């Protein structure tokens, strides 16, 4: 069994030398990464570096740049992983930039451990990536052979014992229901963890309307009609936005006491153009 040497992993299509090459051709979509290890490996391969002597500054900067390119597209799990790797890289980069200090320093040791852990994971990932490439070649090779699968000739089909379903109509219906049920989305949704999305802008508008008419209210009364914690939080953030635009003032007579909100803005003309920033959703 021949196995490519580890060095070829992640770099074998990079013969052209320009850009980041991957299985299946050159990768023009910079945000098309399987994960942080994938990205890191590609960056390292691009700079023809050994993972153990990564030119940290460059790779770190590019890594961060790619995360920014990803924008809001990441799912939660993926984004977390990217951030962990990015944080570790930044740590290492910072350590490099500082003058060499005392190696016995506990922080330095922790940093070394973090580095080693990151690289160990990266190297393990690289090994499996190499295996995946071998699998891909085997699959392609196997796909050129088609197995013989034909209907049993009648003379043999006829000697088969009568087929037993082994289930009744009710079980058959259940099987059909399972098969026909709408398929769960390909990724686990996190929607169920949250109350319906709450828009900070909407909450701010609600507050603006109420405060403009009543002039003053406690925070407690302002959130009395909220159904979810998320709504309370959204309303609080909306309040902060109103404070930032100097439409409200706060009074709190005692620590942890009721928060009194006073309307100090204009007539609450609902000029939404004033609030272009407050359109992020709190979920």
């Amino acid at each position: 069994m021949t196995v490519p040497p580890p060095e070829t992993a992640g770099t074998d299509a990079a013969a052209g030398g320009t850009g980041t090459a991957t299985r299946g051709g050159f990768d023009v979509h910079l945000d098309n990464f399987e994960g942080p290890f994938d990205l890191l490996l590609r960056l390292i391969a691009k700079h023809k570096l050994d993972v153990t002597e990564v030119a940290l500054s460059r790779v770190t900067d590019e890594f961060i740049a790619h995360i920014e390119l990803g924008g809001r597209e990441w799912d939660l799990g993926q984004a977390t992983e990217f951030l962990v790797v990015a944080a570790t890289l930044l740590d290492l980069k910072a350590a490099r930039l500082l003058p060499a200090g005392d190696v016995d320093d506990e922080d330095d040791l922790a940093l070394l451990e973090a580095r080693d852990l990151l690289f160990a994971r990266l190297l393990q990932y690289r090994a499996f990536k190499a295996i995946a490439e071998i699998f891909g070649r085997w699959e392609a090779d196997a796909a050129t052979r088609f197995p013989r699968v034909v209907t049993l000739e009648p003379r043999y089909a006829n000697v088969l014992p009568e087929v037993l379903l082994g289930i009744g109509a009710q079980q058959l219906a259940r099987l059909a229901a399972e098969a026909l049920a709408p398929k769960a989305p390909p990724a686990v949704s996190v929607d169920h963890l949250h109350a319906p999305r709450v828009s900070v802008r909407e909450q701010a508008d609600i507050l603006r309307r109420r405060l403009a008419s009543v002039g003053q209210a406690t925070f407690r009364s302002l959130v009395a009609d909220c159904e979810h914690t998320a709504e309370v939080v959204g309303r609080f953030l909306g309040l902060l936005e109103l404070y930032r635009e100097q439409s409200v003032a706060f009074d709190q007579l005692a620590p942890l006491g009721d928060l009194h909100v006073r309307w100090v803005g204009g007539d609450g003309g609902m000029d939404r153009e004033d609030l272009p920033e407050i359109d992020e959703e709190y979920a």
Partner: protein
Amino acid sequence: MSETEPDAASGEADSGELRDEKRLRSAVEAVLLVVDEPVSAVALAEALAWPTSDVARALGELREEYDRRRRGMELREVGGGWRLYSRSDFAAYVERFVLDGQRTRLTHAALETLAVVAYRQPVTRARIAAIRGVGVDGVVRTLLTRNLIEESGTDPDTGGGLFRTTPLFLERLGLSALDELPDLAPLLPEHSELGADLALDPDADL
């Protein structure tokens, strides 16, 4: 009777044409191995981009060779097409093998496919595959063989073959008509239930 292959004598002095003829026979053999329905010499010739007369000769040669050497396969011309069968001399073994296999019970995949056909008939293979999310050729074939489903015309839109359940299927379920199949609606999960299931999944990657 000589057991020597036709091209054995030529040895390494194979002419290009002879090599091609041999290769053509092998290509024909390769296609015959995978086809389920008898295939005509014309269809083969078209796929192989060879003159039909050459393909027809290759088919004849293959048949003759299988017979002469008493191979395990026979090439038979059935209804204007050619198909490989296992040689009848060995029917006793094949029968024993088929009976040995645990073929009396249907697999889960086959039952699920049968359920889909039962509730969506007449239905194309492609539609079943789309519902089940996997290729269904093998199980459809099994269900056809076991006479639980049958072909019933073609889909006017896609031209794909349509399948429906057979009287044997009803008999096996102890039903007298399709409308006795249990109503599916109460069994289909509500959206909220789906959400609850997901929330309880301890393995969910969150």
